[in-house]
């Protein structure tokens, strides 16, 4: 039987995982605060561990946690960072 699919069957090209770094020393790590409650606490702790491991960190915030990050935020992460950590929270 033939049917009209409700799905968009076009395959989206799988995005390969980025290359994993050998270590944190000297790595530039973006910490993205999605602005959900207590997310900053989580990132504070991660940031402390990353700095202990020799990473350089920088923080960014999303406008609101429930919407995708603005292209400008993503651009800034890509331009300046080697890695990014996004903190989900509640």
């Amino acid at each position, binding site marked *: *039987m033939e049917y*009209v*699919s409700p*799905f*968009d069957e076009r395959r989206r090209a799988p995005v390969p995982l980025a290359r994993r770094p050998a270590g944190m020393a000297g790595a530039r790590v973006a910490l993205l605060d999605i602005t959900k409650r207590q997310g900053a606490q989580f990132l504070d702790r991660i940031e402390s561990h990353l700095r202990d491991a020799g990473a350089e960190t920088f923080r960014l915030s999303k406008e609101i946690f429930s*919407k995708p990050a603005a292209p400008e935020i993503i651009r800034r992460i890509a331009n300046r960072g080697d890695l990014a950590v996004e903190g989900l929270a509640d």
Partner: protein
Amino acid sequence: MVEAPDFTLASVASAPVSLGELIARGPALLVFVSEECPTSALTLRRLAPVAPALLKAGVEVAAVFADPLEVAARTARRAGFPAAVLSEPPPYEVSSAYGLQTVPTAVLVDRGGAQLGRVVGWDAEGLQALLAEAVGGDRAPSLGREPPLRKPGCTAKCALDPELMARLDASAPFDELEEMFERGWTDGLPVIPPTPERVRAMLGGRDGDLSLGTVPPGLGEATVARVAACAVLAGCRPEYFPVVLAAARAALAPAFNLNGQAVTTQPAGQLVVVNGPARELLDLNCGIGALGPGSRANLTIGRALRLLVSLTGEGYPGRLDRSTLGHPGKLGFCIAEDEETSPWEPFHVERGFAAERSVVTLMACDAPLSISDHRSTTPEELTRVLGWAAAATWSPNWWPLGAPSLFVICPEHAAMFRRAGWGKDRVREEMFAAVRRPARELRWGETTPQVMAARDEDMIPKWSSPDDILLLVAGGEAGRYSAVLGPCTGMGEQIVSEEVRWNT
């Protein structure tokens, strides 16, 4: 040299694909398969991990299914097959031209269009040799040694006697409704299969290829045909389709932030409110049981929108939809306002539309909380009962809500406001003033930054403003049960209204 017969076949990922395109830049590995054949499934699963390396090495890989496109897409998806997926319709002339007797059969075609070799059935060593030939010796990715190393295939459809096939098809037990579950084209309830005829009737002459945009969270494209397929699946009659389209347009408006709503752990679903002549035209129920079962139009219009979100948008519970509990309204949530019984201007007029227009308004809403009040004798009393019932919505100490509450006022309660001459603004202001508590009583469990920053005796209102109190009238004429629908919070979303376009 055996020449590879040319073909052009429908593709899952793109416009139809020809052999010429597949071999334009290098050799191509054609893998003829069929959905019913377990050996085909095995072959696709085993080829899946090596396909990216083959593509990288300049070898095109294509699975050629003797099945309809959507069956091919589903089967390839299940096998995790990451390369081209093509579909060959009966009478399988391409398979015949390649002299197929068995599926799977892998055929290697070089850039000049010559067949370099073929492997019939699942034969790991044979296929490995074919891959080596394709990429040139040692660079071929390994298929591994996981058993089975050999497995016979199944008879290719083109090799079956057409009369025998017809007899088998006629006698095969085929349950269309079960097929829909098998495909995952459901919300958990039986659906109406979206045959081309039904979808055509739903479209009513509209261009099915037009796009309304992408549906969050999975970003499938909402072509009008896919919206129509969802409407068919939901059980809509074709005359409901303009309302479904209006609801879809409203849901896809960026201001509605469907993306956040579709993936949140909150329970909220998308409530569709219908106002104007559409209610009578489509027999939408705004009377007895307005929030419950019984009306095909209400139930299927709401369901069509939810199917669009969960199927086209891939916001299916447990997958991208992460709602902890969900609520029954996420199956479908559509109400109409009883404008004729209401003492107030209709909901859509309040939102700036002319009364004679049919309008769909979308809100993110929690499940209805019923409010019984058979004893209030004044509008002041009634307003307090209704308002304090809403005090616990979202979370008992989360004041102010920072999001709207929708009150569905039953006709008997509405009549009390009518007799007293209270307009909507009066009800809102009285309710806003009545429902507030000292901050110190709200400082436990989940509470707001406003409560934490306030002094102990500061009176905190349940809403940020009277404007967050929304009112519409619906329900049976007997019984004093109104309801409040809590919000979806933190989405930064707006309520969105769309006029129903009957002819476009």
